[in-house]
């Protein structure tokens, strides 16, 4: 008894600590905020169809990765916080032409025209100058190369356009440095480019010539000498694959896989906020009504079930933060539903206890039997729920569905734990020791007679 009480107090303390963690880590800039899906935070969800018909089957995987990287780089220019770019391959369930897709999520961006334009655009390569003086001054003032976005912006502002761009490149080739064996990209300019390049290098010896892809510097070599033959080399610290991609980008000027926009979804921020508020309110109200019902009908065990439900809620919220689970409106709905379902295991156990009491067992025996006998029902019924959840998660066609499924699966697992472990512990800890009319009343439930 004492042992149970000590453990119960410990569980309460741990639960309170987790609750404190959940409560204090909210808001902007905190370590573990809830991660909200696009439908709640507002933003844009784009789905592109990738046309792989012109690719050799063996190249599809690599090309899709290259496509993802290209698009991600373009999206990053917009300064969107946490954009998501992913390829999706639903070959098992899709018709052939729709098997490969590219999904772009831009949280907070509701004016998508510019983003859409830039994603579909051909990559732009251009060359910009930065004087040795500016470069040295900047390097002296900044501690690390890519420290903050403001510093990055100041840095980029130091570059001056030269008029030299990717259109003046005749050919790009993959090369390897003979001594270090590092991959690099060799550029051969056309006649216009050669003249311009010659002029630039002649006038700016000692300065730096930045090579920009889609507005981002990929390599900023120093100009050592005048280059009159129209040949240049980009030797950033890239891998062979990156160098190959760059060569392809410059030569073909387009994305590695042609894409077409097949779905645009934009959710304004006000709607998402309303859904979050509605979800939170619904969660609170549902919890309170269920708690009242449990205490009125099941009395002492009902109270224990409410404590277990509280532990369940706190654990779930903490898991949402730690895993982290991207919460969608459907996910919040799923969570509220699992609050209702989490009670099921407790109800099964308590009904079983009452039966054992009716058979004339003492309170303690009835409790032990109740837990033991309800277990197979709880196990089998929850396994079937998990089967449903897993299939939903695997084959869910949209992030709405998978968001729901993930919450549902976690909910079923956590509720089994809270109902069995936590409820049992608390019930053992506070169960009446003696068999009096009062204790019988407290531990029984509902009406006297069963149907």
């Amino acid at each position, binding site marked *: 008894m004492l042992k149970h009480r000590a453990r119960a107090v410990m569980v309460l303390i741990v639960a309170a600590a987790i609750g404190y963690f959940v409560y204090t880590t909210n808001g902007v800039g905190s370590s573990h905020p809830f991660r909200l899906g696009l439908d709640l935070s507002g933003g844009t969800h784009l789905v592109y169809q990738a046309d792989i018909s012109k690719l050799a089957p063996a190249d599809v995987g690599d090309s899709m990765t290259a496509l993802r990287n290209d698009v991600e780089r373009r999206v990053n220019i917009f300064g969107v916080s946490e954009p998501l770019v992913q390829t999706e391959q639903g070959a098992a369930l899709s*018709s052939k032409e729709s098997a490969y897709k590219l999904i772009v999520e831009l949280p907070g961006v509701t004016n998508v025209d510019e983003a859409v334009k830039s994603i579909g655009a051909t990559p732009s390569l251009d060359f910009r100058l930065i004087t040795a003086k500016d470069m040295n001054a900047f390097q002296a003032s900044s501690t690390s190369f890519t420290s903050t976005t403001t510093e990055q912006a100041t840095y980029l502002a130091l570059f001056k356009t030269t008029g030299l761009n990717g259109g003046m490149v005749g050919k790009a080739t993959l090369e390897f440095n003979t001594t270090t064996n590092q991959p690099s990209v060799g550029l051969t300019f056309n006649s216009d480019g050669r003249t311009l390049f010659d002029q630039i290098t002649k006038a700016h010896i000692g300065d730096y010539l930045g090579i920009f892809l889609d507005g981002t510097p990929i390599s900023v070599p120093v100009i050592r000498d005048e280059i009159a033959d129209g040949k240049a080399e980009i030797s950033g610290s890239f891998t062979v694959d990156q160098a190959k991609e760059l060569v392809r980008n410059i030569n073909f000027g387009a994305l590695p896989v042609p894409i077409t926009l097949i779905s645009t979804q*934009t959710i304004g921020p006000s709607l998402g906020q309303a859904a979050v508020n509605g979800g939170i309110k619904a969660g609170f109200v549902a919890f309170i009504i269920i708690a009242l019902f449990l205490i009125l009908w099941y009395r002492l065990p009902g109270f224990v079930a409410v404590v277990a439900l509280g532990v369940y809620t706190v654990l779930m919220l903490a898991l949402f933060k730690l895993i982290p689970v991207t919460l969608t409106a459907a996910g919040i709905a799923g969570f509220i539903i699992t609050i209702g379902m989490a009670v*099921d295991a407790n*109800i099964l156990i308590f009904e079983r206890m009452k039966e054992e009491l009716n058979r004339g067992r003492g309170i303690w025996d009835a409790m032990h039997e109740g837990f033991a006998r309800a277990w197979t029902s709880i196990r089998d019924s929850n396994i*079937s729920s998990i*089967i*449903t959840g897993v299939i939903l998660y695997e084959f869910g066609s*949209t992030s*709405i*569905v998978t968001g729901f499924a993930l919450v549902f699966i976690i909910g079923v697992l956590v509720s089994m734990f809270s109902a069995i472990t936590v409820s049992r512990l608390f019930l053992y800890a506070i169960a009446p020791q003696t068999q009096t009319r009062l204790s019988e009343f407290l531990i029984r439930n509902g009406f006297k007679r069963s149907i």
Partner: protein
Amino acid sequence: MWVINNRKIFYTASGILVLISFLSLIFWGLKPGIDFAGGTLIEVQYPNGHPDQSALSVKLSQIDPGASIRPSGSDEYIVRMKPVDQTEKSSVFGVLNASESTSTNSQAVIKTFDSIGPILGAEALRKAYVSIILVIIGIVIFITFAFRKVSLPVSSWKYGLTAIIALIHDVIIPVGAFSILGHFAGYEVDTLFVTALLVILGFSVHDTIVVFDRVRENLKLASAKKPFGEVVGESISQTFTRSINTSLTTLIALVVLYILGGSTTEHFSLALIIGIAAGTYSSIFIGSPLLVTLERLQAKKK
């Protein structure tokens, strides 16, 4: 046990509901949302009063003759049309914004803009079918496995079969309800609706298994002479309060969600409320009594 003795009444009641659902499905069908059919849905808000509906409608029909616009709430319009590309989208936004400048001085706020191509819609539909079929198969296999040791007097696969009949019952009723609601109130079925159906599947089986589990246990304890019907009847009465109470707590959560949860999950929770109510009914009044009926049929054959 009154449930077993009066099972024909309950079969009839369910039969009527299922029949109505089927008829509604055949005659009216379901109204697919844009995530299945493809199309564009725009919710636009005019905080300072909205422009004339018919003027907007005329301009929108120049872009897509099938476009429809209807008011929603006091200051919102919902526009539906074919899937649009980037240029068409700009002209649609142009229409929605330009008309306000002539009539009132308010800003058009695009609350949501969804445009889904037909390929994506067809794929979502295919995935929905596949997941429903997979859930059903997964559950039959699981039940057959879980009840494998129970073969007398009803073999274990029959438990699975009965669970499936109950499950079809639980799914067909909300589908029928949404078919009727679709016809009269324009309710659409979308991926969330399919999700609701799958949750109903899971819940229905969850409920049925609890009763079956009790049958399994009571069969072990009961003497061989006790009629099967009596064992099932006892099991139902023993799990009766639990079934009602569990559904009640889940329904409480759902009703609260339906009222307070906001428009995104409104139809979703309604589908779940209907399905879970049907599921509770079937686990008590259909699933287990069917086991008895199956047993009687089996006995007659011999």
